């Protein structure tokens, strides 16, 4: 299995996704700490539940948007 141009594209894309994930997590954390997202809004979720779900979504996104195209490209 080849990773684009020697794997460099894959790594760049992965870093890009990783940075976006960090930004998204930061936004959610700041929103919660500043009460933009309140416990009442979360209902029976906690912020931990929300962040977990965030992580799973980004992992899924990374696989779909980065890993799978690279695998197809071979």
């Amino acid at each position, binding site marked *: 299995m080849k990773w684009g141009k020697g794997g460099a*594209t894959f790594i*760049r*894309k992965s870093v*890009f*996704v990783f940075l*976006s994930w960090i*930004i*998204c997590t930061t*936004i*959610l954390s700041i*929103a919660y700490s500043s009460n933009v*997202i309140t*416990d*009442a*809004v*979360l*209902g*029976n*979720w*906690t912020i*931990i*539940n*929300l962040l*977990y*779900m*965030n992580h*799973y*979504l*980004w*992992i*899924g*996104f990374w*696989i*779909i*948007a*980065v*890993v*799978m195209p690279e695998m197809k490209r071979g």
Partner: protein
Amino acid sequence: MLVVIICYFMIQELNNISFANCDYNISSVYQKTEFNTTKWVQAYHNCTLNTTIGLFYLDESAIVPIYDDFTTWIESDASGRLSQTSKRSTFINLNRIDDNIYLYVAKAGELQNFVATSRFKITAIDNSATTIRMMPLTITDTRDDYTDNKVGGKPQFGIQLRSWSSSTAYNLLLYETNSGNLYYTGDTSNRLNVNVLYYVRLTKSGTALNLLVDNDDDFSSPINNYNLVLHSNYNIQYILIPQSAQASGALSISGYSEYLDFGLTTGGYEEKGVIYTKDLLANTTEKSLIIGINGTAQSNTRIRLYTSTDNTTWFIQIDNNGLGQQELYEEILYEYSTLYVRVNITTTDNAKTPYLDELFYYYVGVDGDSGTIAAYPIAIILIICGSLMALTYVGIRKR
């Protein structure tokens, strides 16, 4: 294949969102508490790290009594002695000779058995005679002054104020007039002072009438504690605060009654019951709050739940002639972070004392392994993460 596996784990995660932080911390044993006076019970949950849910007695000081609004009462005041604000009935220069001066309200069905509290102060008194001066509180079926009711043989009872010559001290006595006769009780040597606020509690239970006067509202060491056995178990409807004497000899007096609370009565209105909290571990499939009434039912029994915003606006009420229950599902529980539960028992049968074996119970169960997916968090995720993912995807495609 990988996508399928990832999606599988994501779905598993959705179904296994831990509610550990939202579990309810309730004793594993039943907590049974009786309350015989007006109390608020607060149930709340708060989905944070230290979440608890349960029923908690509020401090007595947190109770918001329901006071009578004197501005809704009706005056008979040809001489212009009376004035009112919402919580205070004031009389200025009310004269012993005043005819038909009173402020009244009808409380049909509520005055056979009751506990009424109020505060009372005399601000000025003409002390040139020892005699009956006025009635701070009278209960009667005939709206009239004291003497006309007495002479006319119209039953009345309540609190009577007597003054003393050469002294501004006065007495508050229990009195009844029946068939033209006056009956009263009280220690006339135990006198009260002008410009001092006194707390008064008048209780009627059948023919037993009791008056407590104290310097504070706990009545633990009353200044006056008088009892009078009435000549009939009256069930009459008017309460007069104040009532003029209409007797010979001009003598003026000024003062006020305030914060009249008829919130606790027997036969008319009572709050009484037993509260249970239930072991959640035994009810792990339940995700709701159930309140209800068991035991010996009385007519017109009521349970109300109030929102967190105030203690007066109820959103759920159970009226089922004393028996019934209603289940509040978690959506409702989560909608209101604080629930006030107030148990109101009313009965129209004055011969009975409300009694319930198990007035009130509730339990809340949480299934720790299968939470529902809340709409708001999903929306948050989709909006924030979705936007960033779209931007990220555009960036990735350029590379």
